């Protein structure tokens, strides 16, 4: 017997929400240096003398929040891209958003440009601009004559653009010096060491817009899985739904990548795990994936910080080590 949708949604949000809240509350306590939570919140001590407060508020809390936001954004964007492309193996990076972002970041690193805007340094700005560029190119290519989006062309254009941008990135890297190469590598692996609240505050409005659109998209995405004609004969404005899905998921991905670089596999592992638990209805899958994605990436970041102290492994390495085998299992299972 299938539970009514409202109850399933409540159960899923309560379950995954608790997981996300617990991970966000507990993660700042974990790390190579143990801290005393009471001391961290002790206002009688001046902040400059309160090491626990500094570790908690300056080092760990921002990256925990960044992890939660990026994890939620990538997981939900993965769900939306998979629904849009009707392909469960699509990821937020399939359509070239991350490759565009990476090219932008690489260009700034190698050129040494130091412009800033709204308190943000050049790299996140350039990476976001790069993702906007990639999205624009892919959209222009995929817009069919009648104004709808050809998902086949979207996929082909995205995959080709990924390859092309990767070639350009190699070209840029070839001429970079060693110090720049190291910074590029760190960025490409994906890292949550944001060191301030500014990138988070800048990304929040963008992610709020994207998540608002996701909420509206949940039902059209269910019908899009019937195919374009099937969705249309069920009363969906398919063009509008496709455009909304493409741009909102690209926006969420671009914002997430500008914070933390292209952290892989979150956008594919989480949607699939969530579907195994809650079923296929996007109205349950989307919020569940966002909350579980947040918990998952925060958890991976704790692993990254505590696995080999005092060395911090980039979180992108952890998600890739967990995600690679999972992805292969998924392929075998589907076959």
């Amino acid at each position: 017997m299938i539970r009514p949708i409202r109850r399933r949604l409540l159960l899923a949000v309560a379950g995954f929400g608790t997981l996300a809240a617990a991970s966000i509350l507990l993660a700042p306590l974990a790390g190579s240096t143990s801290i005393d939570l009471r001391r961290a919140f002790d206002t009688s001590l001046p902040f400059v003398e309160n090491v626990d407060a500094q570790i908690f508020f300056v080092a760990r809390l921002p990256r925990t929040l960044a992890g939660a936001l990026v994890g939620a954004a990538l997981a939900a964007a993965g769900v939306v891209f998979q629904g849009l492309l009707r392909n469960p193996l699509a990821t937020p990076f399939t359509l070239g958003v991350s490759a565009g972002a990476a090219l932008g970041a690489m260009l700034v690193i190698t050129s040494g440009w130091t412009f800033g805007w709204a308190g943000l340094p050049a790299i996140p700005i350039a990476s976001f601009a790069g993702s906007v560029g990639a999205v624009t190119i892919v959209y222009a290519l995929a817009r069919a004559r009648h104004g709808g989006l050809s998902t086949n062309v979207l996929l082909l254009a995205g995959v080709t653009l990924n390859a092309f941008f990767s070639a350009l990135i190699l070209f840029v890297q070839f001429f970079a010096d060693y110090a720049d190469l190291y910074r590029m590598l760190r960025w490409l692996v994906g890292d949550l060491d944001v060191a301030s609240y500014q990138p988070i505050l800048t990304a929040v409005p963008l992610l709020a817009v994207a998540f608002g659109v996701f909420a509206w998209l949940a039902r059209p995405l269910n019908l899009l899985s019937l195919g374009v004609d099937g969705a249309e004969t069920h009363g969906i404005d398919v063009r509008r739904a496709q455009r909304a899905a493409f741009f909102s998921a690209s926006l969420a991905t671009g914002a997430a990548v500008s914070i933390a670089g292209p952290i892989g596999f979150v956008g594919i592992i989480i949607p699939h795990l969530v579907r195994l638990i809650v079923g296929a209805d996007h109205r349950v899958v989307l919020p569940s994936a966002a909350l579980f994605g947040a918990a998952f990436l925060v958890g991976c970041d704790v692993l990254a910080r505590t696995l080999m102290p005092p060395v911090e492994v980039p979180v992108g390495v952890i998600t890739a080590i967990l995600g690679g085998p999972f992805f292969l299992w998924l392929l075998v299972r589907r076959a």
Partner: protein
Amino acid sequence: MLRAADVEFAYGQTAVLRGVSLAVPTGGFAGILGPNGSGKTTMLKVLSGTLKPSKGVVSVDGVDVSRTARHTLARRMAVVPQETHLAFDYTVLEVVLMGRYPHLGTFEVEGPADIAIARDALAATGTSRFEDRLFATLSGGEKQRVIIAAALAQVAGAAAGGGAYLLLDEPTAALDLAYQLEVSALLRTLQQRRPITIVVSTHDLNFAAGVCRSLVLLSEGRVLAAGDTGDVLTPANIRALYGVEADVRTHDGAGHLVVVPIARVPAAGEG
């Protein structure tokens, strides 16, 4: 009344429909017949409003389909495609509930009334026992019946008022003989119990002879013949449509006309 008046449609430079007119009265059961490439499926898409004709008008009860909001049309007209492949693992009940989407507000979810309608549709198509199964695990015939259930759930409100339309694209093409007969029987029973207007596109002459009260024969995008099934399904029309010599007679056991193809005959202009 579902009516198409002088409809033309082309994919790029290739004309597919060349001035097709047809009318299906409320409560009618019409078949669109024709060989591969004759424009059957395109005609069905034009009737359902998913393709816009370059010329001509399609109207439902006198209202131009192209001027009707998608979700308004969807509440009274449902389409059953030839085959349905879902991208994700929905359960059968979820698939049938998708039929209720045009009736819900933007953030509204299905209520008990919608679930009751969906279950009623499952019962009407004999698929209640699959309710909790994953759609992907069903056989072709079972899937087809579930999609017909979803279509019934979609037009349920309109069916009560007599203004429901069900368009089926080659509903038996992917099915074996047993399922073909089952779908035929199902459609006949459905129409007896509910006031639904049904249009099917098919190249299965015996299926059409068994269920359709009227036929439109399409050849290269033009209407070759149209009218009551008994008047249209003649050896002469079959020869003109398919280039096939056929025997057409009423079968006592089946209770309707049956077509027995005898031999391929060269059409005019062929060697």
